């Protein structure tokens, strides 16, 4: 079983993020973590390999800090890593990022592709389904249970109320949702191995892609500017004893805000 995990290093959920340079860029506090949902994808890959054997390759697109997610993957137990590192890959939208990743995946045979339901920085949730479409294979989104056997997979997907069970032939893409598993903490031996691991890099030419097809140039959308969300006015605390405060709260909701 050839398993590919797409993973991304993202700013810590607690990191400060603000528009800078008059909205032309984002100023992000330099604290990074593995994207939460990608950890579920990594863990699931390990569990599938434990059951069915095979090889796990972790792929990311980025530079600098981005490689940390590959080392995390190896520390957890992945066999190989691959880094799409080139200026031309950078600052893409979902479309150009998914195109580059799908080309990198198809360089070698694959059976199963796992990734997080969404990256918690861009919040696009586009790359998983898009990679599947670029590769011409099915996908299952927001997966909370996955069983693989005999060239097919049965996935339980979280839907708005309840779960949907789908069966897909492999190869296929699965986007991991919270509830799929509890990601393991890497062992110290794994961390040591990861520190020493060589990380192969691919360039656009290696993937047969021109600079115009990828990154910002290949994007189909463009961020014109970044803005700060409207701040809520300062909270109005409702004073008084519980009884009094409760009555006043109801009065405000019905008579002032008219939301009830």
């Amino acid at each position, binding site marked *: 079983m050839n398993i590919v995990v797409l993973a991304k290093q993202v700013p810590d*959920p*607690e990191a400060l*993020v*603000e528009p800078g340079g008059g909205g032309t860029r984002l100023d992000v506090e330099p604290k990074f973590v593995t994207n*939460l*949902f990608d950890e579920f994808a990594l863990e699931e890959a390990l569990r599938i390999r434990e059951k069915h054997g095979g090889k796990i390759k972790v792929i990311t697109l980025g530079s600098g800090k981005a490689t940390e997610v590959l080392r995390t993957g190896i520390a957890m137990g992945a066999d190989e890593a691959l880094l799409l590192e080139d200026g031309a890959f950078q600052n893409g*939208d*979902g*479309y150009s990022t998914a195109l580059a990743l799908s080309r990198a995946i198809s360089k070698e045979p694959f059976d199963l592709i796992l990734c997080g339901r969404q990256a*918690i*920085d861009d*919040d696009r*949730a586009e*790359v998983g*389904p*898009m990679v*599947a*479409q670029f590769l011409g294979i*099915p996908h299952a989104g*927001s997966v909370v249970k996955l069983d693989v056997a005999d060239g097919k997979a*049965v996935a*339980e997907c*979280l*839907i*708005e*109320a*309840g*779960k*949907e*069970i*789908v069966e897909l032939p492999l190869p296929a893409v699965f986007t991991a*949702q*919270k509830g799929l598993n509890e990601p393991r903490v890497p062992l110290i031996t794994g961390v040591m191995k990861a520190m020493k691991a060589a990380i192969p890099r691919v360039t656009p030419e290696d993937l047969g892609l021109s600079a115009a097809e990828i990154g910002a140039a290949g*994007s*189909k*959308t*463009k*961020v*014109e*500017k*970044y*803005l*700060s*969300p409207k701040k*809520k006015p300062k*909270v*109005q*605390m*409702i004073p008084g004893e*519980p009884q009094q*405060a*409760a009555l006043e*709260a*109801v009065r*405000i*909701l*019905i008579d002032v*805000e008219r*939301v*009830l």
Partner: protein
Amino acid sequence: METILAFIETKDGEPRKVSLELLSEGRKLAREGRFVLEAVAFGKVSETAKEKVCAYADRFVHITDPVLDLYTAEGYALALCRHAEATKPAVILAGATRIGRDFLPRTAVLLKTGIASDVTEIRRSEDSIKVIRPMYGGKVLAEVSFTSAPAIITVRPNSFGVEAPDGKAGEYTQSRLDIPPGDIRTQVKGVEGATRSKADLTEADLIVSGGRGLKSAENFKLIEDMAEVIGATVGATRSVVDAKWRDQEDQVGKSGKTVSPKLYIAAGISGAIHHIMGMDTSKVVLAINKDPNAIIFNYADYGIAGDALEILPLMTEELKKRMGK
């Protein structure tokens, strides 16, 4: 004249609330921008649904095909792509629902075009459409433009109001696609636990959510009682779901659902960033927490520094009286 195509998501043959929001917004864009508003739906559509949609749309195309009877991302993506290739819309609108966010990225690849997901505002200027979408869980907003057509936009439920239709009735047509069944490899085996009468959290107008401050699963009865009286949907924080007091489908926040109701009541919720990310576009927020310094108060319009276990039943009693129940 260019076309705006609104994808109408149905549930048991009826359009979802977010679909009516799209139609209402689409009507507005059509008026201002001299667009034609076309609606498209797949699978089962009831008679009342046809009327509802035709009240807003100039055209309503209902596409049937055995492979569209049950939702699959592959089937819906292919069907929408085929339809868009034939009609060449300038904009495709869909709800940023589970389904919308699942299949529209595939449609974008098939049409070799861009998508902006989970949009909260559409800005139309002379010759272009720009959208606003939250990133980093709402810490920043991005203004996004399109360098390709059609511009595919999924819209966060409750971002637009539903205005009354302007009286004209659009034309309803039915068409068939004949997608070879072998082209769709995804097989839906079944659905579990999808029998819920209340509005789903993502589309709910009113939400009463509870956190650790509720102290136990049993005490969620107080949340349910209030929700019952005002017709709200119950939400919960991650720690409450992790403690198995509530099901995961109730979870609001980064690893749960993103909600945008008219009223969000946060009871016994401290305001962890994970939770805030899921509810910070709510219109009115009332927070109840014992700790007057709880972070949730930074994101609330109104606050009560008190014990949720005490305040909730008092409010519920008063709500019953005021709302005549």
